[in-house]
């Protein structure tokens, strides 16, 4: 919650930092006040936040990881005969390995584990997933809170240091970098939240009725779903339904063709997935089977792979 708290769980930060306790006061001091009257030690600490002291060891644990070349020869050729359609190699071919000895590494980040990822990468992941699936994913409140705390702290730091006459050229430059990144992160959060909002409004009635889905939403989202449903229904009633015979005023009919007024996500929507692990076989319509081997990519109906997506074995692209 304080300026420095987050450093403790930041794997990249050096382990020795000033005691975080008295920092609560700083949070209260709003940016503008703080800029004028901040004590020098306070400013010093702000400075060391943007310019961390040299670390004892290498601060880039990514360095070693990234050196594993994407083209190295550690290729496990992808077995598993493709059924259904494959964009190339119809399965009738005797072609055995799909890999070309160019390495399985489809992505630079692909060997990266969830824990190793920084918050920004994590945010990117959940954003991609939310964009790529028809159903609403779980609200990642913890991550969002964490990111928000950091953004807030950074904003205060930027405001304070930017208006401090003693801030050096180099620090101003760093602040510019900090702000550039902040805009990137804010954009990600915005797009993530709005992608969810889009789905929530689209399926508001369904969500409101399905209590088993409520754990997927934040409190604010759930309340938005409820209020939006009400707003929409009121609008429909006042615009048309109230002028119709009583028996035609309901909002949850099902039509003769099986279409319900309560729209639900279409679980038949195809999704793009990359298998991080071997996800076994799926049965396609018509009884054919397709292997979801590690390292392969598929365009497949969401409902056939949602559990692998939820487990994190299959990554949405």
């Amino acid at each position, binding site marked *: 919650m304080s300026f420095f708290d987050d450093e403790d769980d930041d794997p990249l930060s050096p382990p020795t930092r000033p005691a975080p306790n008295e920092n609560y006061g700083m949070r209260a001091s709003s940016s503008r006040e703080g800029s004028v009257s901040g004590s020098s030690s306070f400013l010093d600490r702000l400075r060391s936040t943007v*310019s*961390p002291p040299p670390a004892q060891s290498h*601060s*880039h644990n*990514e360095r070693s990881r*990234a050196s594993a*070349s*994407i083209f190295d020869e550690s290729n496990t050729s*992808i077995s598993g005969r*493709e059924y*259904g*359609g*494959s*964009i*190339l190699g*119809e399965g009738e071919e005797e*072609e055995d390995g*799909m*890999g070309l000895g*160019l*390495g399985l*590494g*489809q*992505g*630079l*980040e692909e060997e990266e584990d969830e824990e190793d990822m*920084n*918050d*920004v*990468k994590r945010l*990117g992941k959940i954003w*991609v997933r939310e*964009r*790529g699936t028809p159903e609403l994913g779980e609200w990642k409140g913890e991550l969002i809170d964490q990111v928000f705390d*950091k*953004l807030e702290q950074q904003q205060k730091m930027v405001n304070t240091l930017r208006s401090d006459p003693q801030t050096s050229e*180099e620090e101003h430059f760093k602040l510019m*970098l*900090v702000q*550039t*990144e902040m805009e*990137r992160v804010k*954009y990600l959060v915005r797009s993530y939240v*709005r992608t969810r*909002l889009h789905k929530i*409004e689209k399926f508001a009635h369904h969500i409101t009725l399905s209590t088993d889905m409520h754990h997927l939403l934040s409190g604010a989202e759930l309340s938005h779903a409820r209020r939006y449903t009400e707003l929409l229904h009121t609008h429909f009633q006042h615009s048309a339904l109230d002028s119709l015979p009583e028996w035609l005023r309901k909002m949850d009919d099902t039509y003769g063709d099986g279409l319900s007024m309560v729209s639900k996500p279409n*679980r*038949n*929507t*195809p999704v793009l997935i990359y298998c991080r692990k071997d996800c076994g076989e799926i049965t*396609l*319509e018509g009884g054919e089977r*397709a292997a979801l081997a590690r*390292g392969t*990519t*598929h*365009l*497949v*109906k969401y*409902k056939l792979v949602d559990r692998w997506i939820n487990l994190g074995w299959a990554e949405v692209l």
Partner: protein
Amino acid sequence: MALPKHLQNGLTPDELTFLAEEETIDIVPLFSMTRVRLLSGIYGPFTPPSSAKVPLWLALSLKRKRKCRIVPPEWLSIDRVQNVLKEERENAESFCSLPRRFIEISKVLLDVAQDDSMQPSLLRSLLKDLREVRQAKIRIGLQSEGVMRGSYLQVTNLTPLELSELKPFLVKAMGIMQSLEPRGDDDEDEEEGQ
């Protein structure tokens, strides 16, 4: 709408490039600066001529201000790309495995930092060839019979950017295929899916 219409079909090339910009890359700074703490990590110190590892967006930002030289990733060397292109041409049955953000990263690097790569025009034309060979294979692949069977397609080794270009068409085609399938199937599957 909360999500603008042009974003509703999936990630756009701009958005994929944005993601690619979070990948790290080596730079040789042309200025000195102590370490800087950002949300995604601590970067630096920047002391020429030692290299530093930074996110691509940071590298590009510095490059635009002429404050660094970007070291192109190994896979973006003429040799490597030539090899991949050769493989790609020889193998008609599948696609070469490329780094996930291959197209995006190579494009921004050639746009912003072309003076940092050897023979940028040769590289550019190799990349163009590679992209075209792959696109041709995609077209051929999509023409083969039964490719849309069962609303499923294996697309291994195509990069997300290539897939994002295909996806709207494929999803639409699959939707049409599905509406042609006998009804009743759906409800059954829905049960199974729960």
